[in-house]
């Protein structure tokens, strides 16, 4: 599979936009996860749908986000495991040199393969009219898709977000990578400086370090992943540093310049200035919504440059016929949040429902080793709402399967409303926390409490048994209650 196969699926060079229908039930702006989910959902329900994409179907998730990053993390994990082969009795423990071209070829192969599920053909087969080109509102219920005028009863804006740029002096001149460009690297940088300690920064720092780059990560905050709880962030710090990433917390980047062919990052920590020489800089300081070229004002849609399109709890914009979904309007900029919000917006826009985005329970995960996943309320949020909460913690080092797998870093914490067995959230740090958090998602959606959970039989041994063990701890501590 090559680049042609990818383009054939997501932006065929010979593509011709269809002749627009007189009016569409739904116009969807953006062909990423949110736009694709919205278009599919509406088409499945028998509505006429126009989907407008300015670049390639699949969005950031397929081309520069979840898929390529997880592909490269897959390779990086293998490299890390090979480095520890001796612990498992594997004869060779030395890490082979990295064939970076092969690593990136694998990334592209995977991207192309998965693109089939987001292909233009698939849209057409479902009756969706796909328009490739820029979308721009020209009225309350009208827009231009490329050159084609297009009328709609309802619309959903799902144009996503892009990496935030920075005003660090000199950085533009020095040149830097973002999550959108790092997967186009032709060779493994010997030294990589990562600015920003959020999920993408941490994932990239660890992956490139494992592949053989010498990585420094600079984070303005006192901890990585500021939205995660202290114990999770500290475990990640330890893990990054164990892999050899130079972690620099509480560090401000004051500037960048080139000196003798090297990129120099100027940093300040507690008033002490120092510089770090690198070959490439990855800027990863968040994402900003794509709203600039949409002429939102023409449709009466309000937006904030930083937060994106203003929506109410039903995802409706200030134009009652236009909704928004995904990164362009949500604080949680994740693929699953984009898809679930898009389906909700379709229900509200076309089916007259009044579903609230605040009722969505959206798990998320940072794919470092160990992975850090969260769902529902944090303890801090619960306390802010005056909800008395108790965490039931099981350390992965006490879980049989985690021990046998040699993956015993981390923990499962289930947050329970005190005086009840009701689960309000969970944080999981584990090798495959992304898989385990999905069990929590089912548990919470089904309204299963700790007492019932303690008696649900799990496969043994399995790392997800940690979830049941947390419930057993609840039952053990609750007077007069016993797990059968």
């Amino acid at each position: 599979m090559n680049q042609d196969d990818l383009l054939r699926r997501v932006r065929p060079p010979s593509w011709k936009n269809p002749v627009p229908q007189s009016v569409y039930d739904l116009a969807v702006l953006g062909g990423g996860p949110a736009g694709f989910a919205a278009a599919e959902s509406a088409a499945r329900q028998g509505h006429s749908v126009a989907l407008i994409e300015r670049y390639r179907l699949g969005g950031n998730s397929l081309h520069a986000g979840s898929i390529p990053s997880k592909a490269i993390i897959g390779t990086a994990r293998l490299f890390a495991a090979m480095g520890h082969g001796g612990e498992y009795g594997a004869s060779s423990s030395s890490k082979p040199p990295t064939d970076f071209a092969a690593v990136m070829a694998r990334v592209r192969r995977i991207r192309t393969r998965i693109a089939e599920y987001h292909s233009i053909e698939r849209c057409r087969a479902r009756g969706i009219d796909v328009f490739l080109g820029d979308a721009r509102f020209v009225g309350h219920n009208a827009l231009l898709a490329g050159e084609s005028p297009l009328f709609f009863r309802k619309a959903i804006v799902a144009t996503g977000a892009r990496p935030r740029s920075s005003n660090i002096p000199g950085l533009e001149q020095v040149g830097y990578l973002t999550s959108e460009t790092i997967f186009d690297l032709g060779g493994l940088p010997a030294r990589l400086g990562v600015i920003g300690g959020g999920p993408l920064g941490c994932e990239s720092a660890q992956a490139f370090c494992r592949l053989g780059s010498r990585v420094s990560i600079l984070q303005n905050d006192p901890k990585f992943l500021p939205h995660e709880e202290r114990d999770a962030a500290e475990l990640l710090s330890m893990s990054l540093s164990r892999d050899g990433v130079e972690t620099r917390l509480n560090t401000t980047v004051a500037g960048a310049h080139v000196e003798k062919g090297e990129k120099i990052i100027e940093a300040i920590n507690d008033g002490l200035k120092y510089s770090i020489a690198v070959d490439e800089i990855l800027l990863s300081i968040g994402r900003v919504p794509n709203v600039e070229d949409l002429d939102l004002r023409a449709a009466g849609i309000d937006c904030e440059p930083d937060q994106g399109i203003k929506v109410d709890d039903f995802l409706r914009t200030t134009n009652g016929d236009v909704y928004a979904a995904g990164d362009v309007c949500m604080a949680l900029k994740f693929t699953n949040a984009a898809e679930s919000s898009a389906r909700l917006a379709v229900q509200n826009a076309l089916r007259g429902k009044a579903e609230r985005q605040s009722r969505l329970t959206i798990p998320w995960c940072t794919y470092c080793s160990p992975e850090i996943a969260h769902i529902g309320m944090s303890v801090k949020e619960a306390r802010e709402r005056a909800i008395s909460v108790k965490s039931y913690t099981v350390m992965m080092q006490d879980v049989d399967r985690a021990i046998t797998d040699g993956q015993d870093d981390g923990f499962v914490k289930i947050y329970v409303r005190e005086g009840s067995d009701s689960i309000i959230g969970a944080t999981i740090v584990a090798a495959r926390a992304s898989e385990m958090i999905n069990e929590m998602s089912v548990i919470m959606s089904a309204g299963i409490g700790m007492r019932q959970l303690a008696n649900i039989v799990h496969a043994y041994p399995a790392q997800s048994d940690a979830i049941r063990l947390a419930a057993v701890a609840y039952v053990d501590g609750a007077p007069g209650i016993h797990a059968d």
Partner: protein
Amino acid sequence: MPRPLRRGTRRRVRHRLPPLNPPVSAAGETLLALPDDALLDRLQRAAFGYLAEYSNPETGLVADTSRGGSPCSIAVVGFALSCYPVAVARGWVSRSAAAAQTLKILRFFSESAQNDGPDATGYKGFYYHFLDMQSGRRVWQCELSVVDTSLLIAGILTAGCYFDGDGNEAEIRGLSDALYRRVDWQWAQNERQTVAQGWKPECGFLHYGWEGYNEATIVFVLGLGSPTHPLSAASFAGWTSTYQWENLLGQDVLYSGPLFTHLFSHAWLDYRDIRDVFMREKDSDYFDNTRSAIAIHREYGARNPRGYEGYDRNLWGITAGDGPGNRELRQSSRDRRYFGYMSRGAPYGPDDGTIAPWAMLATLPFGADIALRGTRHLLRTYPQICSNDRFCSGFNPSLAEHGNAWLSEGWYGLDQGLLVMMIENYRSGLIWEITRDSTWIQAGLKGAGFEGGWLSRCR
């Protein structure tokens, strides 16, 4: 409190270094032969000996460690000030000598440079974490430390409460009061809800976060009790809103990993039966919480998930302290990583097999049987951790070189000071008795929302 471990600064105070791996099995055996009270007396007196030996004769500043070139740590001075009443009560030092030594220290802090220059002793009533042993000025470009100043101020208030006589003792009371009143806690809030951890003339306030429980309760109690520049009433609630009540290894606990965080505030404050809002909600108190933390450390020692040498239900004590240095080794087909000075914790880690030998004994007031059983087991198994009857800061039996387990060189002042106070709190409750009488501490506890027990009997 993780601190940098650096060398090379000028040092003239006298010091005695123990041999690296001293042949102390005989001494260990002698110690073990003693009945509990005699054993405690000997270890307590030796610990106090550090504070006297490693102090500057003119200023009374106490060295952070016994190593050559060590600067003064202001927190250690706070511990030392609190230990002189113990020494008087135990008959190791005359009351007048103790008062003279205390006065020397208080005069130094009263008269030393307080300004925003880079080499002052302090600013806004706070002090730099590390001071030159001779000049008493800031070293290492270290931070103006809110936590360490609090430990120093706790010692200053302890001295002010204890010395209730005339002459020198009256001057001690006056200086103690003035030094406390001078601390500008409001300034340290930096117009936020909670307190900054530190400040530097080079960059202003440090923005390290305060998330979750740690040793800082005493910061808020002292800050809220101030009659001059108190912390805002909401500051403590701001911090405790980040607390997490947790069921962990069979215990309900307000978790914090390093053992010292469950001991430092407790060395001064009698938390028995007094509760703030959080603890009332959880039907616990900070004293019982330390007991739960100890139970977790013991359980972790028994489970020993990383398979470290020596760990046991009776050999535990993972906390902040010296360590073997950063290195990665493959030992018996296991990849292991060791660290230098750092804040270690259980069960979340970091844990590299380094145990603080003093830690079990420092938990004495929370369960004497457990603390003594562990300490005796430790002395029996690894007698080298105790030289001149003093415990070293850390040792690591998993890291043996030339047949000798790694052992931290010399002694650390914080460990010795904490031991003197905790042993005394167990033996007589003297420190708690003194601080219970402090009107400022009473006011601070009440300001933080503490109620019940002995506090309800204070007007």
